[in-house]
């Protein structure tokens, strides 16, 4: 397993945004993730790629405690998820939700604040303003009162993004945000990612399209049940690593920037 030694890179703060050690997840007898290690420094835009069934979504879900782990642990800014929760935002897959639910776009975004609001209290003006602002960021201000069933795929994705943004986190996990969105939304999401990175946020994205990895991201993790390689694009997104991850089913892909 080849991963970049963190302390060798210049300008990286010593605390890692996200660390995974020995993470193993099993469905009955088949391992979905096996002995996975990953170190992600702050302020990077990382793509997690791998073939189907490689465990990319599973990695995020297991780290966030959404599915049980067979072994290993995940750390967020040096502590457990429970303690770091307010600094972590999660954008799940679009298909995990019933979009015919009777609610508006603004409502969905405000749901991102429920963790903050706590029990028994109702959303206040401040929450509403934060939600409107997040919608503004993703360009859906005029859709605030729209029923979510009337949204296109790209608009749904941007609603989910706004919901994560409203939490004002430092670390974001996104599960296939680019899946089946139109070109305009794709550009919009990339812009958003860049902006987040400029503000020193860390974003980890499960991505399915190898072609765009070098263009959109600066770090990458190659996963196929095990962690094949992770690190900056220049050194990690190589043909050898890709072949190892995809089992030789990958035709020559331009490995991003020339080495």
């Amino acid at each position, binding site marked *: 397993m080849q991963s970049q030694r963190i302390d060798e890179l210049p300008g990286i703060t010593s605390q890692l945004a996200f660390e995974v050690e020995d993470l193993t997840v099993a469905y009955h*007898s088949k*391992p979905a993730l096996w*002995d996975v290690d990953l170190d992600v420094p702050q302020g990077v835009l990382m793509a997690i790629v791998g073939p189907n069934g490689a465990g990319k979504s599973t990695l995020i879900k297991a780290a966030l405690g959404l599915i049980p782990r067979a072994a290993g*642990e995940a750390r967020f800014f040096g502590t457990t998820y429970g303690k770091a929760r307010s600094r972590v935002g999660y954008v799940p897959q679009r298909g995990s939700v019933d979009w*015919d639910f009777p609610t508006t776009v603004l409502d969905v975004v405000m749901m991102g604040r429920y963790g903050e609001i706590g029990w028994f209290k109702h959303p206040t003006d401040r929450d509403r303003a934060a939600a409107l602002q997040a919608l503004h960021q993703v360009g859906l201000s005029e859709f605030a009162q729209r029923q979510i069933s009337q949204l296109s795929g790209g608009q749904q994705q941007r609603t989910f993004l706004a919901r994560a943004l409203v939490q004002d986190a430092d670390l974001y996990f996104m599960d296939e945000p680019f899946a089946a969105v139109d070109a305009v939304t794709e550009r919009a999401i990339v812009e958003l990612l860049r902006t987040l990175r400029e503000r020193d946020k860390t974003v980890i994205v499960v991505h399915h399209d190898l072609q765009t990895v070098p263009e959109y991201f600066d770090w990458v993790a190659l996963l196929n049940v095990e962690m*094949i390689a992770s690190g900056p694009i220049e050194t990690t997104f190589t043909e050898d690593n890709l072949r190892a991850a995809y089992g030789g089913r990958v035709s020559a892909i331009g490995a991003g920037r020339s080495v």
Partner: protein
Amino acid sequence: MQLIESLLVQLLTRFVSPDTLNAALTDPRTVAVIVGVLVATSSALLGGFMLLRKMALTTDAISHTILLGIVSSFLFMAFVLGIAPDLASPWLIIGAALAGVATVVLTEAIQRSGLVKGDAALGLAFPLLFAIGVLLVARFTSQIHLDADSVLVGEIGLAWTNTNSYCLENCDSITITPEDPRAETARVCTNCQTESISPRSPNAVFEMTCANCGTYTAAEAWRARLIAEPPQLVYLPKAISTMGVITLINLLFVLLFYKELKLATFDRALALSLGFRPGWLHYTLMILVSVTAVGAFDAVGSILVVAFFVIPAAAAYLLTDRLWVMLLIAPAIGAVGAYTGYDLARGSLFGIVQMNDVLAFLDRTIGLGGYIQWDSSISAAMVLTTFTLFVIVWVVAPQRGLISTLLRRRWQREQFAAQVLLGHLHNHMGANERHEREVSTLHEHLRWTPRRVFWTLTRLRASDLVDVEDGLARLTERGRASLIEFREQNLATP
């Protein structure tokens, strides 16, 4: 129908004497069991497909909405045809079939609107149709003699009373004319009374009357002692003939269309593209389900119908991977359930436990007001025994049963844990990583409980996959081989 019944009687009497047959067919237990077995068989044959098509709840819905079909048929018979409604009429079949199809059509229409998600459409359609049925029954009680009980549980215990009789010998009706030696003739004075004259008077008018002339059926003739030999009658409960025919029809359907049904159930699109008519099969299946339900309705009521459609099929589903085996096992399970069900209703659970004893025990513990006589609805009991059989299968089925599954999963977890530990040892073979292999701290590195570490390590050492020396664990040759084999089977890179 009568033709079929008489053929059946002819067939049966070839093997069994009419007296034995009658003795059997007038025994409530035998009849109830036979009817139950027939219901179970006919239902289970279709139930297998309904289960696989994920239409189990549709079966439940149909078994309720046939009430509306029956009621509609009754009303049709009473008001349009002007005949007395009768549960044996063929109109019932038509009404039931229509109701069944209507249920499915209505549900699909609601689903097509796209405004109702998932199965909720069924939860709108069948309550409405069933409610209308119940309201009609309540409104037209004079014309429709159905009460809530019989709707739900039927009267299988009384199935033996509702019979058609068939005559085997000495069946001829006789006609007694005045000339017949058996005729009771007499000369009677017709005007003696009215004219108040004596019979001996010359004005008296006499007439020959016959007290017992006329036409008699064989049974009547026998009763009037006009013939020497009684007619040989066989009493065939209607429920048996009805359910028998339905069972045959279902059997024929399944046999004839086996491969089409199999294909349409598994891959509807492929069936369409190959030119079969999955839609036609779909609706025919619904119609047969409705017909079976209504056929069984009178005897066993609607709840038993559903249970016999789904429960045996589900149990069979857990026992085999082959469709044709499933279609063999399901009716068998249903039949056993029917057979033992009767006994349960009469007080004996599988011959092992006596219900009255159970009641006596409960009376002592929680107090039942002294009522310790068990006597219950036969149909309900049949469902319960069938359900018990399902639970037994669920638990002990080889491979798919609970016990096997739990054991298998535990074994898999152990294997997994072993491999995780092996992998961990393998990854930390380096000289500067010895602390990672210290037995006493392994649980910290792996984030396991010390207990889990202990047992996994013990098992690994017992299988000679791991050695422990000076408090450090390391892989043996066999351990390394095991690890490689696991990786080859499960992971991308060996």
